[in-house]
């Protein structure tokens, strides 16, 4: 084996109490497309930030072209030929393609820009003049300009963070060809960071897998490794700890029929989704985020009112009606985005606590502060929320207490239907436990629960049935007794056996 163009050993990085990277080894061969696979939060982005000099690791060594680098910083990394395309584009929208490409002082094609642009725009099949303003390009075209930027500043090592997240299937296969050409003809070293199994198999020659800040597999030959093995590596062991599932199920409370939705960018984000949930039942929705979860909950909860298909709550058709129609039928929604959707930032704890039922504290145009306070005090007692000052801004609460306030507010009226999206994301263990108990209690009270989560542990622990969303479609549906982690993991990655 030849000497790697880049080699890092024993890299560790902690943030507060969280070990983002735990003595990670990673190495790249010149002219090869590498894959870096892992779930959200596995440490992929942290590692890339170390390589591009943004984070300084506490431990470990970095060697580039067999030369040890003492203290990497972004400028040095860039001059050593390491370039990164971030998930959020870093283009200047009001500049032309040419200006964006030649912005870097490391730019190597200043003299013969035209020929270089001709060559690479053909490789990327970018059919725009270099005088086009970036803001007039489509998302896929911007992505191409972003990658070309790395070529123009002579990056030998190209780190691409989830480059396909914003692309259509056609653009994705186009990108595959472009990257192959770059690695073969220009000997570019490419790292593709993703959690999509299918793409990593399609695009790469060799695969690294991360899990919980550790590198769990190095340099696997893509054509020799099975999907199943990769899923096991990526998901790790799942503790199949679970609440009792002896709950009694009643009549159907929520029924969703043939929902399809095309968003503003004319992407088909939901495709023919149907399911129903009975009283006392929890339906888990698995899937990597961005596969239609937010759109689905917006449709069910009345925020998105234009769609094809039907939503029925207790046999009442609420399609085309707004949020208030759902409130009347006692549906509760715990949105994924806690602060910003579920709670209004900059507004007091008291005001935030009343968002669901403030009209119950009103007499005509008058709003009774006393009633609101009583309601909040009930919430605080019943859900043991720690709120030091109810008139202070909501951000004075900790993440766990914010979520308890939001859950309490949505659950105290004993709702018929609950839609809970990522209810425990970012919370510590004890908060997670109490949120889980709340959901189970509510199930036993007879609510129908739609639980949307990326966390398979959580879904196994709470759900009675699980559906998997992939690219806006239900790709798999199983009862919890017959579910197995591997096939769910594969389905989340788009593979249904």
């Amino acid at each position, binding site marked *: 084996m030849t000497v790697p163009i880049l080699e890092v050993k024993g890299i560790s990085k902690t943030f507060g109490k969280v070990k983002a990277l735990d003595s990670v080894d990673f190495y790249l061969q010149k002219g090869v497309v590498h894959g870096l696979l892992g779930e959200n939060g596995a440490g992929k982005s942290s590692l890339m930030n170390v390589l591009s000099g943004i984070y300084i690791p506490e431990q470990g060594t970095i060697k580039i072209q067999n030369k040890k680098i003492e203290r990497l910083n972004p400028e040095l990394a860039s001059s050593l030929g390491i370039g990164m395309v971030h998930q959020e584009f870093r283009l200047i929208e009001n500049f032309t393609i040419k200006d964006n490409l030649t912005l870097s002082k490391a730019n190597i094609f200043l003299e013969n820009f035209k020929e270089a642009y001709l060559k690479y725009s053909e490789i990327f099949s970018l059919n725009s003049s270099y005088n086009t303003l970036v803001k007039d390009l489509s998302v896929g075209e911007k992505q191409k300009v972003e990658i070309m930027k790395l070529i123009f500043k002579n990056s030998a090592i190209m780190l691409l963070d989830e480059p396909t997240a914003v692309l259509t299937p056609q653009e994705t296969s186009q990108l595959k060809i472009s990257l192959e050409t770059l690695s073969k003809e220009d000997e570019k070293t490419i790292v593709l960071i993703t959690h999509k199994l299918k793409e990593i198999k399609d695009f790469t020659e060799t695969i690294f897998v991360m899990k919980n800040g550790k590198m769990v597999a190095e340099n696997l030959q893509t054509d020799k490794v099975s999907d199943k093995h990769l899923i096991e590596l990526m998901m790790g062991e799942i503790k199949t700890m679970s609440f009792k599932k002896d709950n009694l199920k009643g009549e159907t409370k929520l029924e969703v029929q043939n929902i399809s939705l095309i968003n503003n960018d004319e992407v088909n984000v939901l495709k023919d989704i149907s399911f129903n949930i009975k009283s006392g039942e929890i339906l888990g929705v698995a899937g990597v985020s961005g596969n239609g979860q937010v759109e689905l909950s917006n449709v069910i909860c009345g925020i998105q009112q234009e769609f094809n298909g039907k939503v029925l709550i207790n046999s009442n058709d609420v399609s085309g009606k707004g949020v208030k129609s759902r409130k009347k039928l006692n549906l509760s929604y715990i949105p994924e985005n806690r602060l910003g959707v579920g709670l209004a930032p900059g507004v007091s704890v008291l005001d935030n606590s009343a968002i669901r039922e403030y009209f119950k504290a009103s007499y005509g*145009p008058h709003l009774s502060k006393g009633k609101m306070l009583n309601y909040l005090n009930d919430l605080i007692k019943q859900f043991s929320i720690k709120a030091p000052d109810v008139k202070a801004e909501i951000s004075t609460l900790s993440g766990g207490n914010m979520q308890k306030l939001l859950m309490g507010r949505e659950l105290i009226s004993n709702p018929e239907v609950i839609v809970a999206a990522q209810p425990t994301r970012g919370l510590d263990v004890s908060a997670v436990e109490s949120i889980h108990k709340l959901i189970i209690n509510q199930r036993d009270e007879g609510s129908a629960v739609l639980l949307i989560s990326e966390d398979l542990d959580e879904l196994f622990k709470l759900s009675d049935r699980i559906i998997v969303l992939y690219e806006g479609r239900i790709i798999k549906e199983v009862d919890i007794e017959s579910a197995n982690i591997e096939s769910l993991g594969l389905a989340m990655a788009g593979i249904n056996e």
Partner: protein
Amino acid sequence: MNNYILSKKLFRNELSTFYSFLIGFIVALFVGSLILLIQDKNPIDVFSLMLKLSVGSINSLSNSLNKAIPLILAGLGISIINSVRLWNIGAEGQIFMGALALNFFYINSSIQNSTLYIFLLLTASFIGGSICILIPALTKVLFGVNEIITTLLTNYIVFGLTIYLINGVWKDPASLNFPAAAYVNESVYLPIIVGKLSSGFLICIIFTLLAFYIKDKSVFGYEMRIAGGSELTAIYAGISAKQKAFLAMLIGGGFAGLAGGIELLSQTHRVSTGISQGFGYTAIIVAAITGMRPLGIFLVGCLFGALTIGGSVIQTIGVSSYIAEIIQATTLFGALVAQFFFSYEIKKKVENG
């Protein structure tokens, strides 16, 4: 390396806005004194004269409070609009528009009962203020056009319209060459309560309480707060954030329009460029100093009214009336700086991912 960052304090003293105002006012008096000293004037003499001539007698006190009326009403309008976190820089134009609408209604109507007539005229001025902010409100909710720019620009349009009317169709032949509309009939003057104090001040008190009620005690105020906090939360809660923003702007504009109506019926008695002397701009200062609290706006409005009167009388001893404006502006500046230090603290940086 920069190891310190500014971070927002989680808990603020409830009285911090009041303390900020006091600090700002003291700083402003200090700055004013310095300027007077440079001019070889004794600041204590000047300030005591200002005090005496602005609040020393019933007449001077009522002059001060009359001046406070438009500041308070326009300030309240600004504070209502700020409930949805929008800024109204157009109070000056709305004041003029209120007066124009009143005069338009006056010219085209004739009602015997003067109490009813005054009521209707003032209603017309309120509506005039709302009409003035209608275009900024529509462009805001329909296209997201920045309301700071549009409300500011309407000031120039309305001022131009006023000039056009008082030099043209509304020009009073009896005013010789002075551009002004004809005086309104004495029967629709706002009655005097005591001294020179106009009954507009009573309207002002009522509207202060009304604004306080709307902002703090009503369902509408609550919905405005949520919509102002986060449009997505409002949509989630089934509140139409755009509708609240639109209504808040129309009501806020109406408050400023009413100020113009009262000014016409109690002070100028006719449409002229003297309807407002920058009241709409000073009202922004008043509203900002008080952190948009209606009761605070009432008190600071009264103080600024007195300052304006005090400033105009000290011209008799050779001091420029601008000293009052310097004090007003420096108060805002000092108060904002003080509010900043009440709201933020300097902390050691903690790196996080």
